[in-house]
Every structure is written in structure tokens, then in C-alpha cells.
């Protein structure tokens, strides 16, 4: 007997009216199968990138204080959501639709008017993958400005970065823009995604100022320990997991053996980053510093992202190991010298190591890298790209944050910050049942309750 999916069939029938890119109408062919493999691969990779948002949410909440947890989680939920909606509305068009002077796209708003474009896979698959990437760039900011920034200010900036700042950079590098033309190589986004997030975070954290209590009267740095390291660790592992979508998925094709190569370089760089940060902090302080080790794994991942397809496994180990040492040095630099307060190390992980990783392509690329006898030309192109994106992002973010400051203000009041953003901005506590504060209705049931049932 043959089970029939009446409803399924009728719906699928309906869908056939929408443009499909060469999928099998009558019987599969090698071409339709290859297309299906690529589509399946990109979608699954996109799902993995999506779960990185859970990773960010946990890292950011775990490494900050309990009193600001509801706040940071709200920001994370909104980042992924606003990111998807705005990348649908404008981001995709700016990044991939048409081209104006190599600088910006100009068609495909709301995904209309783009039936003439060919993305290799169904348009919606391509959009989906790019949309989850977009939100990733945005969410990097929330960690760096955590524990003191107004919710409304953060949301406004999220709108600007996902609708405009990030898509423009994508256009330059992945959308056929001027950096692409120059041969700038950033395979999965050390610069396009991570640096754009990090430089925005840098500007934001600078303008919003340090958390109360971060620097003593004498300017001495004070550690402000995160409230839940297991969540931060889980978050890091979820990010690592998601990176297997981020990097190998960026082939946009499952029918190439490169995906195995890329998974391998990704894995080795992350491992090398973890080990080198562990050894470095152990050597320096006599104790391995888990808060930095977790960042070190991410440093290795961010570092390899640009060159993941272009460097050898041994090259990946070197890149990861160097990123894992750059990371604690960079954290120290921002904490102690530059004095920009970044609770979760977002600027160092995504900015410093993102820039390093992009430049490292010019050194380690098997084809064209300086260390492989390829001369300095690729390296120079990489430098140009890194600097250009730094300037673009820095200027845009500065203008944006200044505007937002003027309109709604960037920072909560001192009272609100001391009390914690959860109570002041949400009237809610992350662990509402652990304390007695919930009072009247909290952890304890009054006897009165006994009657009402």
C-alpha cells in the first residue's frame, strides 16, 4: 500500500509555481542531485551558524554579572530576529543585488526583483545562509557593551549594522565589489563578519565608557568575574560547533572535497588556539585562566576563518596557535593600556584575531602566501582590505552611536547600572527563585494560596 500525503502533495504542487533552480521535475539527474546536495549542505551549515547565536548568548551572559543577565539575553534574542528581518528588507539587496561602483548593491529589497540572479543554489537557501551570518556580525557588539548600555540604544545600533554597515562590506568582498576585484581573500569572514562586529564593538565600548567599578580611583583595573562559567563554556563549545557551518558551509557547495579540508583546518586551528592560550596563561600567572582559554578557542576559530580553505593543516595549527597567544595580549592591552572595557573580550577575539587571520592568509596561503614563496602582493591586498574595513566600520559606527546617543542616550543611569539592568530595564531577575526578593509571589507560597485550589 502506498501512503499518500495529500496535503503535502498539494502544497508542494503549489510551490512548483515558484522558480526552482534546476531541481528535478521528472526524475533526478546528476545535475539535479548535485544541486540538491549543495542546497542541503548550505542549509544545514546555516542551521549550525544559527546555533552560534545560542553560543553568543551563553558566552555573553556567563561572563557578565547575574544582575544583567535578562538584559543581555533579551539583546541576543532581538539581534538574531532583527538581523534576519533587516537582511530580508535591505541587507541582502545592498550586499548582493546589483552593483553601484563596486561599493554597494541596489536591488532585491525584500527579495523581490532578483529572479535573474544565479546563486548556484536556490535563492532562499543562499539568503538563509547569508542572513544568519549577518546577525552574527551584529551580536558581537552586544558582549562588548554589556552591563551598561540602554536596551533601546543597542536595538537602534543593531538595526543600523544589519541593515547597512555590514551589508556594504559584504558587497565589497563577497558581492563582487571593489575588494573582490582586487583579489582580497576572506573566505568565511574573519574580516567581513568578525572584524565588522568587533570594530563596531570597539567604537561602542569606547563611547559608552567602562562599567562602574572596572577602574579604581587610581585607574587600576579591577576584575569583574562572570557569574556562570559553565554557561560560558557551553557557549564557547556551541560556537565552535556552529563554526563547522560557518567555515565549511561558506563553500556554498557540498560537492567539493574542500569541505573536508576546511573542517580539518577549522578544527586544528581552534585546538591550537585553546592549547596555546592555556600554556601562555599558565606560564604567565602560574595558573591556566579558563576565562581566557575559552576566548583562545574562539581566537583560533576567528583566526582561521579567512584562510580556512587556503592554508594547509600545519598552517592552520600555526595560525591558531598565534591567535591563541595574541588573544591574552590583546585583552591585556585593551584592559590596561587602551582602557576600553570589554566584558567578554569580543574586541580581542573578533577584532584583533580577525585582522590577524586575514593578514595571515597573505603569509600562509598555500598559493600566493609569502611563506610559500608567493611574494608580498597578496599580503598587501589583505592589508588594504583590513584597513579599509576598519575605516568604514569605525566611521559608520562612530556616527551611528553618536546619533543614537543624541536621540535616546547610550548609557543607563548610575543607579540603574548599580542595581543591575535586569531590575531597572526589565523588572525581572534571571534567577528569580534563588533569592528572597521575589517577595510576595516568589519562591515561597503563602498559606493563602492553599485555599485557592
Amino acid at each position: 500500500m502506498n501512503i499518500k500525503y495529500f496535503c503535502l502533495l498539494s502544497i508542494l504542487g503549489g510551490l512548483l509555481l515558484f522558480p526552482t533552480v534546476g531541481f528535478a521535475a521528472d526524475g533526478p539527474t546528476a545535475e539535479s542531485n548535485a544541486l540538491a546536495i549543495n542546497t542541503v549542505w548550505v542549509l544545514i551549515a546555516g542551521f549550525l551558524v544559527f546555533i552560534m547565536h545560542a553560543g553568543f548568548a551563553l558566552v555573553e551572559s556567563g561572563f557578565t554579572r547575574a544582575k544583567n543577565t535578562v538584559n543581555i539575553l533579551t539583546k541576543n534574542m532581538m539581534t538574531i530576529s532583527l538581523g534576519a528581518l533587516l537582511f530580508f528588507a535591505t541587507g541582502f539587496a545592498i550586499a548582493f543585488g546589483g552593483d553601484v561602483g563596486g561599493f554597494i548593491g541596489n536591488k532585491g529589497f525584500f527579495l523581490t526583483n532578483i529572479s535573474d540572479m544565479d546563486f548556484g543554489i536556490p535563492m532562499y537557501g543562499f539568503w538563509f545562509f547569508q542572513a544568519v551570518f549577518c546577525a552574527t556580525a551584529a551580536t558581537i557588539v552586544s558582549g562588548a557593551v554589556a552591563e551598561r548600555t540602554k536596551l533601546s540604544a543597542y536595538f537602534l545600533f543593531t538595526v543600523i549594522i544589519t541593515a547597512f554597515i555590514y551589508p556594504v562590506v559584504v558587497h565589497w568582498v563577497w558581492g563582487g565589489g571593489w575588494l573582490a576585484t582586487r583579489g582580497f581573500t576572506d573566505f568565511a569572514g574573519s574580516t567581513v563578519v568578525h572584524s565588522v562586529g568587533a570594530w563596531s564593538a570597539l567604537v561602542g565600548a569606547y563611547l559608552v565608557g567602562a562599567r562602574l567599578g572596572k577602574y579604581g580611583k587610581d585607574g587600576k583595573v579591577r576584575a569583574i568575574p562572570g557569574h556562570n562559567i559553565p554557561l560560558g563554556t557551553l557557549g564557547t563549545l556551541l560556537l565552535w560547533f556552529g563554526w563547522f557551518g560557518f567555515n565549511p558551509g561558506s563553500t556554498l557547495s557540498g560537492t567539493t572535497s574542500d569541505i573536508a579540508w576546511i573542517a580539518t583546518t577549522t578544527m586544528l586551528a581552534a585546538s591550537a588556539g585553546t592549547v596555546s592560550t592555556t600554556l601562555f596563561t599558565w606560564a604567565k600567572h602560574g595558573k591556566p585562566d579558563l576565562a581566557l582559554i575559552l576566548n583562545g578557542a574562539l581566537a583560533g576559530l576567528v583566526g582561521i576563518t579567512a584562510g580556512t580553505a587556503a592554508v594547509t593543516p600545519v598552517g592552520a595549527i600555526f595560525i591558531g596557535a598565534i591567535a591563541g597567544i595574541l588573544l591574552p595580549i590583546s585583552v591585556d592591552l585593551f584592559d590596561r593600556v587602551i582602557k576600553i572595557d570589554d566584558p567578554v573580550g569580543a574586541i580581542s577575539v573578533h577584532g584583533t584575531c580577525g585582522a590577524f587571520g586575514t593578514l595571515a592568509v597573505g603569509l600562509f596561503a598555500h598559493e600566493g602566501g609569502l611563506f610559500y614563496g608567493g611574494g608580498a602582493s597578496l599580503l598587501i591586498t589583505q592589508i588594504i582590505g583590513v584597513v579599509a574595513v576598519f575605516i568604514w566600520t569605525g566611521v559608520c559606527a562612530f556616527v551611528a552611536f553618536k546619533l543614537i546617543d543624541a536621540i535616546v542616550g547610550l548609557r543607563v543611569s548610575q543607579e540603574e547600572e548599580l542595581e543591575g539592568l535586569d531590575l531597572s530595564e526589565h523588572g525581572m531577575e534571571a534567577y528569580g527563585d534563588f533569592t528572597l526578593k521575589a517577595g510576595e509571589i516568589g519562591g515561597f507560597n503563602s498559606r493563602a494560596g492553599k485555599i485557592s485550589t
Partner: protein
Amino acid sequence: MKKIEAIIRPTVLEDIKEALGEYGIHGMTVSEVAGCGLQKGRVGIYRGSKFNINLLHKVKLELVTTDNQVNEVVEIISKVGRSGEIGDGKIFIYPLENAIRIRTGDEGDDAIS
């Protein structure tokens, strides 16, 4: 002035707070404690091992009152907090030498009014 310290069941905190509020007392300090006494603990099981859970969740209420309020407060807590089952808790009354309100520097009864 006296300090009244009551060890009560967590479940009656709200009712006592309400009853004291009706009587006119709002100031108090509350903390979570663990108590043992006559009340039998629970048998815990963890990975196949049984053990005795003999420190039970209680709430400690601390109130500083004027001398003339003590009896009334003790009465209220006793009445509202009593279930009649073992484990209702205790009220302890301590002497106090002074009280200061940090905000104003008021001392004595003024500090807690």
C-alpha cells in the same frame, strides 16, 4: 528596644510579613538558613546511595522593635506561623543597646520608626 529573631518555615513568610504589615511593622531583614532540630529530615537518594537530609530550609526573620511591641509581634508570628507540626520553628528575643539609621543618624527608637 529588642531584637526578635524568628526561624520560620519558608512557606509562611509572606503571611507573616502581611500580618506584621497590618499591625504596622514594615521594617525587617530576612535571610535563608538551614535548620535542624526535632523535625525529621528527608531521606535523600543520589546515584543509589541513601542519605539523610537533616538540614532543612528555613527562613530567618530579624526585627528590631520597641519594647512595647515585642509581645504583639511574638503573638502575630506565633499565630500565623503555627501549623502544629514539628518544625514550625522558634522565636528568640535579644536585648539591644542601640540602633542607628544610617541615612539620618537617628538613634534609638527613632531609628526604626
